[in-house]
C-alpha cells in the first residue's frame, strides 16, 4: 500500500469515527440540524471557516489564478468585509429568534408557509449546483491519488460524504469541519515554503512567473474589469446570506460566541487564501501546460511535497470539499425534509419518522448532483465558476429578504416571495443568456431588491406578531 493511500485511509477512518461518535450525541432534530445550538467559538468559527474554504479555494481559486492571473486575487478581499458585516450588523438581529433552517426563518419573519416553501426549493436548486463543483474536484483528486477515472472518484467521494453526514448530522459535520480545518492549515502552511523552494525562493518565483506567463500580473488582461467587480460583489453578498453559513449562527450559543467565531473564521480564511495565491504562482512555473487549471493544486501536492505530506495536502483538499458539501447536504436535506415534507406535505409526521425522512432527504440531495455530472451536465467548467454561479444564485435570492427582513418592518411576504423568485430567475437567465463580462449576481440582486421593496409597498403591512421579535426596540 502506498503512503498516499495509507494517509487517505487513515484520514477517512478518523472522519467515520467522528460520525459514529456524533451519532451518540444526537438525540433530537435540534442536535441533528444545528448541533443543539450550543457550539463554542472555536468549533463554531472552525466550522464556518472550513465550510467557506471549499474546493473553491483549494482547487478553484488556484485554478483561476493559474489560468487567468493574479487579478482574481483581489476579488476575494471582499470576503472578510462580508464577515465583518455579518458579525457587526446582521447576527445581532438575525439570531434573536433561533430556527432550525433558513426557510424556517423566512416563514417566521414573513408569516407564510409558501415563502418558506419557495426558499426551500431555491436552496435545493442552488445546492445541487454547488455540490457539483465539489464533486468534480473530488474526482480530480481521486484521479491523482488513486489513478482511478475521474468519474469513479466522483461516485466514491459522494458515497463517503453521504455515509458520515447521514449518520451524524450537524454534530458530525461540525467536528469533522474542525478536524478538516486543522489539516487544511497544516497542509497549506507546509506546502508553501516547499513549493517556493523548488523555484529558488520568492525573488526568483516572481521573476519566473512573469517569464512563464507574462499576463499573470497584468490587470484586466485575462478577466474583464466588470467581471472582476461583479465577482467580488458575488463573494461579498454570497458570504452574507448563504444558508449553510447563516445556519451556523444559530448553532453557536450566543452573540459574543458568534463574534469570536467569526473572527477566527476571517483570520483562517484570509490566511489560507494568501497561501493558495502563492502556491498558484509556483504551479504556473512548475507545470506550464496543465489540461485544466483545477489540477494545479493536486499536482503541487503530488510533485512538490514529500509523499506523506503530499497525501496530507490532498487530504486537506478533500477536507475542504467534504466540509463544504457536508454542510450543504445538511442545508439541502433540511430544506427537503423539514421545510417541504414536514411543513407542506405531512405536518403530523412522528419524530422517529421525521429523523428517517431527514436522512433520506440528505441521500436524495446528495445523489442528484453526481447523477447529473455523470450525465454530462456541469462537466467541463472550472470549479471556481461553478462556485460563483451558486454564490450568485444564493445572493440573488436571500440577501435582500434576509438582511432587509431584519432591518425594515414594512417588508411583506409578497415582497419576499417576489424578491426571491425574481432574483434567482434573473440570475439564472443572465447566466444562460446575458453578457459574460458581468456576473449574474448584479442583475439578480438589483431585481430582487426592486421587487422586494416595490411589492412590499404595494401590499398590506405585515402583522405585528411576525415582525415584533426582530424589532424589540421599536
Amino acid at each position: 500500500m502506498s503512503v498516499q493511500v495509507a494517509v487517505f485511509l487513515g484520514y477517512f477512518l478518523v472522519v467515520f469515527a467522528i460520525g459514529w461518535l456524533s451519532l451518540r450525541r444526537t438525540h433530537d432534530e435540534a442536535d441533528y440540524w444545528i448541533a443543539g445550538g450550543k457550539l463554542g467559538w472555536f468549533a463554531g468559527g472552525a466550522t464556518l471557516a472550513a465550510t467557506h474554504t471549499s474546493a473553491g479555494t483549494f482547487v478553484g481559486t488556484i485554478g483561476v489564478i493559474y489560468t487567468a492571473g493574479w487579478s482574481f486575487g483581489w476579488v476575494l478581499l471582499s470576503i472578510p468585509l462580508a464577515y465583518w458585516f455579518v458579525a457587526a450588523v446582521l447576527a445581532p438581529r438575525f439570531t434573536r429568534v433561533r430556527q432550525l433552517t433558513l426557510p424556517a426563518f423566512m416563514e417566521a419573519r414573513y408569516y407564510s408557509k409558501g415563502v418558506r416553501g419557495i426558499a426551500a426549493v431555491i436552496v435545493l436548486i442552488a445546492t445541487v449546483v454547488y455540490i457539483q463543483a465539489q464533486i468534480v474536484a473530488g474526482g480530480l483528486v481521486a484521479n491523482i491519488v488513486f489513478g482511478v477515472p475521474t468519474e469513479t472518484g466522483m461516485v466514491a467521494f459522494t458515497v463517503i460524504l453521504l455515509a458520515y453526514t447521514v449518520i451524524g448530522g450537524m454534530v458530525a459535520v461540525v467536528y469533522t469541519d474542525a478536524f478538516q480545518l486543522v489539516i487544511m492549515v497544516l497542509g497549506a502552511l507546509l506546502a508553501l515554503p516547499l513549493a517556493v523552494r523548488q523555484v529558488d525562493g520568492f525573488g526568483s518565483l516572481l521573476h519566473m512567473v512573469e517569464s512563464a506567463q507574462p499576463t499573470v500580473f497584468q490587470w484586466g488582461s485575462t478577466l474583464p474589469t466588470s467581471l472582476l467587480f461583479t465577482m467580488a460583489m458575488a463573494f461579498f453578498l454570497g458570504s452574507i446570506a448563504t444558508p449553510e453559513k447563516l445556519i451556523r449562527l444559530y448553532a453557536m450559543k450566543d452573540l459574543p460566541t458568534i463574534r469570536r467565531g467569526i473572527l477566527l473564521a476571517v483570520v483562517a480564511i484570509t490566511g489560507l487564501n494568501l497561501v493558495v495565491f502563492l502556491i498558484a504562482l509556483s504551479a504556473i512555473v512548475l507545470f506550464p501546460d496543465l489540461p485544466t487549471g483545477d489540477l494545479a493544486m493536486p499536482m503541487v501536492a503530488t510533485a512538490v511535497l514529500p509523499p506523506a505530506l503530499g497525501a496530507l495536502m490532498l487530504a486537506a483538499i478533500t477536507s475542504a470539499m467534504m466540509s463544504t458539501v457536508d454542510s450543504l447536504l445538511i442545508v439541502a436535506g433540511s430544506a427537503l425534509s423539514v421545510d417541504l415534507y414536514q411543513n407542506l406535505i405531512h405536518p403530523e409526521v412522528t419524530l422517529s419518522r421525521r429523523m428517517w425522512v431527514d436522512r433520506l432527504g440528505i441521500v436524495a440531495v446528495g445523489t442528484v448532483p453526481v447523477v447529473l455530472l455523470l450525465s454530462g451536465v456541469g462537466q467541463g467548467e472550472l470549479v471556481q465558476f461553478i462556485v460563483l454561479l451558486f454564490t450568485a444564485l444564493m445572493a440573488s435570492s436571500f440577501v435582500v429578504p434576509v438582511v432587509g427582513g431584519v432591518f425594515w418592518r414594512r417588508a411583506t411576504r409578497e415582497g419576499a416571495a417576489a424578491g426571491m423568485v425574481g432574483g434567482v430567475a434573473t440570475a439564472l437567465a443572465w447566466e444562460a443568456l446575458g453578457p459574460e463580462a458581468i456576473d449574474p449576481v448584479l442583475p439578480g440582486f438589483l431585481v430582487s431588491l426592486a421587487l422586494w421593496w416595490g411589492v412590499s409597498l404595494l401590499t398590506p403591512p405585515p402583522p405585528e406578531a411576525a415582525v415584533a421579535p426582530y424589532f424589540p426596540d421599536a
Partner: protein
Amino acid sequence: MRAPGLAAAALLGLAPAATAQATVHAATFEADLRGGEARVTVVYELRGVVSGTAVGVSLLDFGPAAAADVRVGPTGAALALPRTRGAARAGTLEVDAGPDGAARVELSYVVPLPEGGDGSVVAHLPVATLDLQPERARPELFQAELVVPEGWRVTEGFPTAMYPAAGVGRLQASLQVVPSVVTVRARTDGRTRPGLLLLLDLVALSGLVAFSAAGWRHLTARAA
C-alpha cells in the same frame, strides 16, 4: 446553466492555438549528469497531429541552468530558441505525423551543472515543453530517468517521489503531467543527513496523530 466551458472561455486572450486538437500522449525525459554537464533527451509522443503543423517549444532557464545546443530528432538539426521574456525561451518546429495523427518529437540539449563546492549540489534540469496539453492527466504520462555521477548521494528531487532504478546511480520518477524542470539535490561529500522532506513528513504525521488522539478523547468524553 451555461454550456460547459463557456465560463472558462470568458477568459480573454486564451484563444486556443491552431494545433489545439493535438495532444501530448506521453513524454520521456532522460538525463545523464556524468561529465560536468547534463545531457538531456526529451521524447514526446503526440496524438491528433496534422502533418506539417508548427508546434511551439518552450524552455525556462533556472538561473545558470540554461539549456544549450538544442537539437531536434534523430537528424540532430539545431533548433533556435531565442529568449522571449525574462527566463523564458521559445521557438517552433514542424511536426510530421502518420496517417493516424500520431507523431514523435525528440529534443536533446545540454545543461551546465553547478560546481557543488560546499559538499552539496542542486542541479536544475529544464524540460523543453511543447505548447500542447495532455489529453488528460494520467499516471506515468511523464517519465524521467536520470544517471547521476558516482559519489552523489541524492537527498531530494523534483518530482519528490524519485526512486532508484536498475543500474548504479540511476533514478526514476513519473508524473501525471509534464513539468518545466526536473531537479536533483545531492550531497557530494559522502555525508548522510536526514533530508528536509523526511523531517517534514514526520512532523506532519506526528501532528495528525496527536490531533486525532486529542479529538478522540474530547468526543468520547462528551459522548459519555
